[in-house]
C-alpha cells in the first residue's frame, strides 16, 4: 500500500519533469544560430531564398515562437513527437526502433560491470594492501583513466584486425539475414566489443567502490558478532560484509543506468552501434530539431523511471529505508 502510493506520487513527478524538459529543450535548441531550413537547404546543394522560405512554411518555422511551442506541446501531449526534418519519418518511430539496441547494449554492459566490479572489489578487500589488492587497484585505475574511445579503438585493432575473432562494428552481419538462434549469436558477437568497452570503465568504478565499502563495513560491530558466532570467514565476508557493502552500490549503479539510457554517444559511434547515441549525434549534426527534442523527452522519461526503480531496489535491499 505504502509502496503503491509512493510509486503513484513518483509517476506524477515524472510527468512534471517531462513537461519541464519539453519546455526547456524547446527554447534551448532555438538559442543556436540558424535553423533547420538553412541546414536542409545546404544539404540540398543550393540556397535560394524562396526555397528556404518554402521549407520554413512547410515545417511551421515562420510562425511566432509561442505558436510553435503551443503546437509542439499539444502534439507531444497526444503522443506525437513530430516528424524528423531529415528522415521525414515520425520521430517516435525512429526512436523506438533504436531504443531497444541501446537498452540491450547498456544492460549487457551494466551486468558485466556489476558482476566483474563486485567480484574484483570483494577480492581486493579481502586483504587490503596485499599484492592482489594492489593489482586490482592498478587495473581499476587504468580502465578508469583511459579514454573510452581509445579503449574501443584498441579493442577493434586487437580483436578485429589482428586476431580477427570479433566483428568491429554494427549490430549484426549485414546481408546475412540470420534468424532465430543464429541471429542471437550474431548479435551477441557484435555486442562484445562495444559492451566490454563500456563495461570496463564502470567495472573499474564498481570495483573501487565495493572495495572501499567492504573495508569500511569490515570494521562494523556486527561483523565482530558474526565472527564471535563461529561462522567461517567466507560466510562472514559474503553474508555480512558484502551484503551491507552493496547498498551504496545500488545508488551508484542506478545513477549510471540513467546516464547510459541517454545513449552512449562515444562508444555507439566508435562501433557504429545503431542506438540512441548515434541517433542523437546525427540529429545534432543535421540540426534535426524534432528528432533531438524527441530524444530528450524519451530519455528524460526513462531516467525518471530508472530513478524510481533504483529507489525501490534500495528500499528492498535496506529494510531501514522507508519510501516516503
Amino acid at each position, binding site marked *: 500500500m505504502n509502496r503503491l502510493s509512493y510509486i503513484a506520487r513518483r509517476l506524477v513527478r515524472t510527468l512534471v519533469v517531462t513537461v519541464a524538459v519539453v519546455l526547456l529543450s524547446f527554447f534551448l535548441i532555438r538559442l543556436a544560430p540558424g535553423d533547420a531550413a538553412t541546414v536542409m537547404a545546404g544539404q540540398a546543394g543550393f540556397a535560394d531564398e524562396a526555397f528556404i522560405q518554402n521549407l520554413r512554411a512547410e515545417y511551421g518555422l515562420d510562425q511566432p515562437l509561442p505558436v510553435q511551442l503551443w503546437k509542439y506541446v499539444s502534439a507531444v501531449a497526444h503522443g506525437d513527437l513530430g516528424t524528423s526534418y531529415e528522415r521525414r519519418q515520425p520521430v517516435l518511430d525512429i526512436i523506438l526502433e533504436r531504443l531497444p539496441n541501446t537498452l540491450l547494449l547498456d544492460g549487457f554492459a551494466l551486468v558485466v560491470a556489476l558482476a566483474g566490479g563486485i567480484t574484483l572489489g570483494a577480492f581486493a578487500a579481502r586483504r587490503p594492501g596485499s599484492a592482489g589488492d594492489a593489482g586490482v587497484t592498478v587495473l581499476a585505475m587504468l580502465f578508469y583513466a583511459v579514454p573510452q574511445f581509445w579503449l574501443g579503438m584498441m579493442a577493434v585493432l586487437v580483436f578485429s584486425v589482428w586476431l580477427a575473432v570479433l566483428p568491429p562494428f554494427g549490430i549484426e552481419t549485414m546481408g546475412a539475414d540470420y534468424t532465430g538462434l543464429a541471429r542471437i549469436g550474431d548479435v551477441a558477437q557484435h555486442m562484445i566489443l562495444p559492451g566490454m568497452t563500456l563495461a570496463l570503465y564502470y567495472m573499474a568504478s564498481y570495483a573501487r567502490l565495493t572495495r572501499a565499502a567492504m573495508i569500511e563495513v569490515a570494521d*562494523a560491530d556486527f561483523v565482530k558478532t558474526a565472527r564471535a558466532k563461529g561462522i*567461517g570467514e567466507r560466510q562472514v565476508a559474503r553474508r555480512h560484509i558484502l551484503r551491507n557493502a552493496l547498498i551504496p552500490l545500488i545508488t551508484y549503479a542506478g545513477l549510471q543506468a540513467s546516464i547510459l539510457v541517454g545513449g552512449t554517444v562515444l562508444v555507439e559511434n566508435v562501433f557504429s552501434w545503431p542506438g540512441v547515441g548515434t541517433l542523437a549525434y546525427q540529429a545534432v549534426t543535421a540540426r534535426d530539431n524534432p528528432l533531438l527534442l524527441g530524444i530528450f523527452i524519451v530519455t528524460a522519461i526513462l531516467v525518471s523511471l530508472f530513478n524510481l526503480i533504483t529507489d525501490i531496489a534500495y528500499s528492498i535491499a535496506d529494510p*531501514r529505508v522507508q519510501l516516503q
Partner: protein
Amino acid sequence: MTALVAIAGLSVALPPGGDRPYAVRDVSLEIGTSEIVCIVGESGSGKSVTAHALMGLLPRGLDAAGGSIRFDGREILGQPAQDWRRMRGAEIAMIFQDPMAALNPVVPVGRQITEQIRAHRSIGEAAAMQQAGDLMVQMGLEAAHLHAFPHQLSGGQRQRVMIAMALSLSPRLLIADEPTTALDVTTQAQILDLIRTVQKERQMSVLFITHDFGVVSDLADRVAVMRAGEVVESGPVRQVLDDPRHPYTRALIAAVPRLSGSPDPLPPHAPVLAVTGLSKVYRRGGGFLGLGARRETRALDKVSLTLQRGETLGIVGESGSGKSTLARCIIRLADVDDGEILFDGADLAKMNGRGLRACRKRIQMVFQDPFSSLNPRHTVSEIVTAGPRAHGEGAKEALARAAEMLALVGLEASALPRYPHEFSGGQRQRIGLARALMLKPDVLIADEPVSALDVTVQAQVLELLDRVRAHMNLAMLFITHDMRVAARICHRVMVMRQGRVVEEGPAATLFAAPKSDYTSQLLAAIPGQSRLEA
C-alpha cells in the same frame, strides 16, 4: 571449584609508536565454573582486549606476546583458526555494548540466530528456526520477533536477541562486554536480571566487563580491577568493595555518584527562564495527497518549568522522554507547537530572525558527544572564538578572552593552536564548555555532558560545571538519564516520561522520598545502591 578459564601472564603488544608498549601486560585471571567474574576499568584499561583475546578475536595488529589461556584445562592461546572457529559461539559466546550495531541491520534477527546454530550443528533451517523461537520466548520476547529487523526492535529487545543468540548453543562461558551501558536504567536492570537468571539456570560462567561499580556490586562473585593494561587488584566482590587495597580501586569506588548529598534548593527569586505549557508534536506520513494515515508523536506535552540565576535544574528521563527535545525547543533549534518560553521577559517561542539570534547568544549549550560536537578541522582557538566573532567581537579581544576562558575550565593556553583530536574526552568537554561560556550566557543547557566520559573524569567535569555555574552565576539546565549524576549537581530535579513532567521538586527530597511510582521505579533500577550507599 575448578577453573573453567585460567589466564596466566597474558601480554598483548601494541603496535610500535603508541603511548604504551602493551595493551595488556601480565594479566592473570581465573573464572570458575558457574561463576560471574567482573572486570572493571575505564577506557583504555585493557578490559576489552582481555575479553577479545579470550575469544581469539584480537583486532588486526594486536597479538598475544606471551602468557597462556587455558580453557577447561586445554591451552587455547595460539590454537589454529579452525579450532577457534569451532569454539566461538559453541563453547564461548559474546555479547556487546551496542546491540544495534552488533546486529546485522539488513538480516531478520531470526536468521541471525539460526546462522549461529547451523554453523555448528547440522540441522535444517526450519528446525533451527524452531529452536531460535523457543530461545526468544525464554528471553522474554515473542516468536513473532524472529521476523523483525533490528531497527524495528527497542534497545532492550535487541540485547535480548543478542543474549538468545549467545545462548543458542549452551556455551560454557558468556563474555559480556558492557552489555547494558547503552541502555536505559530500567532496561539495564531487566537485562542484568536476565543474565543472572540464565547464568543460574545453566550453571554457566560469565565474564562481565563494565566501568560501573554499581553493576559490579549487584552481579559479581569476583572482580578484577584493571588500569592501563594491568590488573591492579582482584578478589571476591565483598572484599574488594568493603576493603579496597589499591588507591585506584578506592578512587573508582569513590567516583561512583551517590544519590545522597544533593545541594539544597536556592531561596526563590525571579526566574531568568520560565517555560509554560510547551508542546511539540512530530508528525509523520500522510501518504499520497494526504490520504494515508498520519502518525503523531507527542514529544512534549504541556511542559512548564522555571529556572533562576545560579540554579541548576536537572531534567531526568529515559530515552524518548522528551528531555532533549525540550532543550532543542528552548533554544529554538526545533519549532514549538504551543506554549511560551519567557527569557528575561521576552517570549522566545514567538521570536524570529535578529531578535532570536541576540537571545540565543545568551542561552548556550554543551553537548553529549565530545568527539562529534567539535569540528575536527578547526583549531581550539577557532572553535572557541567563532561565536563571539560572529556576534561582532574583534579577533584580538576574542583570543585574549579565549585564553582566560580556557584557564577557567582548567586548560592551558597552549591548547589554542591545537586540534580536537589531540585531546581526551574530558578535555574536549572542557573545550566545549569554554566555547559556550565565551558568549557570556545567562543560561547554560548541558545535554548529557558527562555520559560519554569515564567515572573519574565524569566527577571532575561535574565539579567543573558546578564551579563555573557558581562563578558566573549561571542558570543551568542539566539534562541526564542518570539520576546519580543529577543528584550530585542539581538543586531541583524534574522527572520526565513520554513528553510529560512526572514529578518535580528539590533534589534532596525527590530522591529521598519520591512521590510518583515512576520515579521510585527509576530509583530502584539503579544498580548497586543498597551495597554502595551504605
